[in-house]
């Protein structure tokens, strides 16, 4: 357990030093959301209606951006082999890396989202639920993303391929995440959808490290 926290702290410090990842992710998030009013026109009613889904989709795409670098540096410099040989179960190591990745890329998204919802003129009733749904959803997206990152570890076009692999698994999270916000705006009870999001997160926490560890063992062979 101490080893897990040591690894977690190490990964977080490493990600903070490579701060570029967080800036790229948030930068992409902001820029893409800003593009939409130019594309669909600045009719505030229309923007307010599509705001929940738009913010969620863009957050999802931004979360996918930094995925291919998740294991790549470790794979290339041999630290992955060290992780495989160490006494920490590989699944725990994957959880530590996913947690560090989420703290550096997911958390900024959650903080930036309400600001972007504001400029899209989203109904104020949805702000808290937007942050809540992203807080439950982005860790799930990171965990599912680790599966994609591990599967495509030594391919030539890893980044694009990750999107193709990971998007089908992202869609349920997206559906329920956006539905939470629209339910809050429409004034209906969002608790079932929140629980569904929580269920996805728990399932991902339990199953994604297993799949990722299997894929990493394949890659290291």
């Amino acid at each position: 357990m101490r080893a897990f926290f040591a690894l977690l702290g190490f990964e977080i410090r490493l990600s903070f030093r490579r701060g570029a990842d967080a800036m790229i992710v948030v930068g992409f998030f902001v820029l893409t959301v800003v593009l939409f009013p130019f594309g669909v026109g600045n009719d505030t009613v229309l923007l307010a209606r599509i705001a929940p889904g738009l913010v969620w989709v863009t957050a999802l795409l931004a979360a996918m951006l930094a995925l291919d670098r998740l294991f790549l540096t470790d794979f290339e410099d041999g630290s992955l082999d060290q992780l495989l040989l160490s006494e920490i179960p590989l699944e725990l190591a994957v959880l530590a890396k996913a947690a560090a990745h989420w703290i550096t890329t997911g958390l900024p998204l959650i903080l930036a989202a309400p600001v972007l919802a504001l400029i899209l003129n989203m109904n104020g009733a949805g702000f808290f639920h937007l942050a809540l749904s992203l807080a439950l959803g982005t860790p799930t997206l990171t965990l599912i993303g680790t599966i994609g990152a591990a599967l495509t570890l030594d391919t030539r076009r890893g980044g694009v391929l990750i999107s193709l692999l990971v998007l089908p698994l992202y869609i349920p999270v997206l559906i329920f995440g956006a539905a939470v916000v629209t339910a809050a705006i429409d004034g209906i009870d969002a608790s079932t959808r929140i629980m569904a999001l929580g269920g996805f997160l728990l399932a991902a926490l339990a199953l994604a490290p297993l799949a990722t560890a299997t894929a990493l063992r394949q890659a290291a062979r």
Partner: protein
Amino acid sequence: MKFESMIHFLANPARFMRIGTRLLPWCWALAALCTGTGLWFAFVVSPPDYQQGESVRIMYIHVPSAWLALAIYSLIAAVSAMALVWKHPLGFLIGRAAAPLGAGFTVICLVTGALWGQSSWGTWWVWDARLTSVLILFFLYLGYMALGNAFDDLERGNRASALLAIIGFVNIPIIKFSVDWWSTLHQPASVLLTGEPAIHPSMLTPLALMVVGLMAYFSALLILRVRAEIAGRKVQTLMMAGAMGSAGNS
């Protein structure tokens, strides 16, 4: 464990090819016969629908393709599990060979469904649960094929795509039960594994014939493609051996 020993018996690629080559003409014959009579029943004998008229006949292509798309993905997931657990290379070969066929049937299902939807619902596409999850199935097929071919090392590609196939299997129950869980535009199941089917024999017969015919067609193509994969591997091995041999000599 008789089932497991049967799998081990059949998993020898050479034995699979011997059995497959003997079955091949029968598969073609069954495919031609059943698809032929099925289409005859579908387009000539079976009655037009009292609401939809003649366009209901798209069902006889749409539904068997959908069943086959699901069945082929389940087959790929099963042989991938078999290959990863028991290290049978035949599992990887069957998966690689079957994936484009499954993707093709999914495309047929989606396109015929869109044509049918336009004529009976008035819309080419709707984002209901079953259509969306079948579209996701199509992306899973594409991802499986892309991942398998993305590695320089063939074995690594085999193992990665096999793992992906198993992970994606969670979509199959979603497709199957989506029309039961959410009441949406796509109609619920009329042919059930238990109990009486809810459709008339005059429509059930061509449906059954088309399913059997298309399955035989798929089996024939699968055997041909596995044969081609094995031959391709042999050619590659011979080329590499030739290259190494000449390098040693020069």
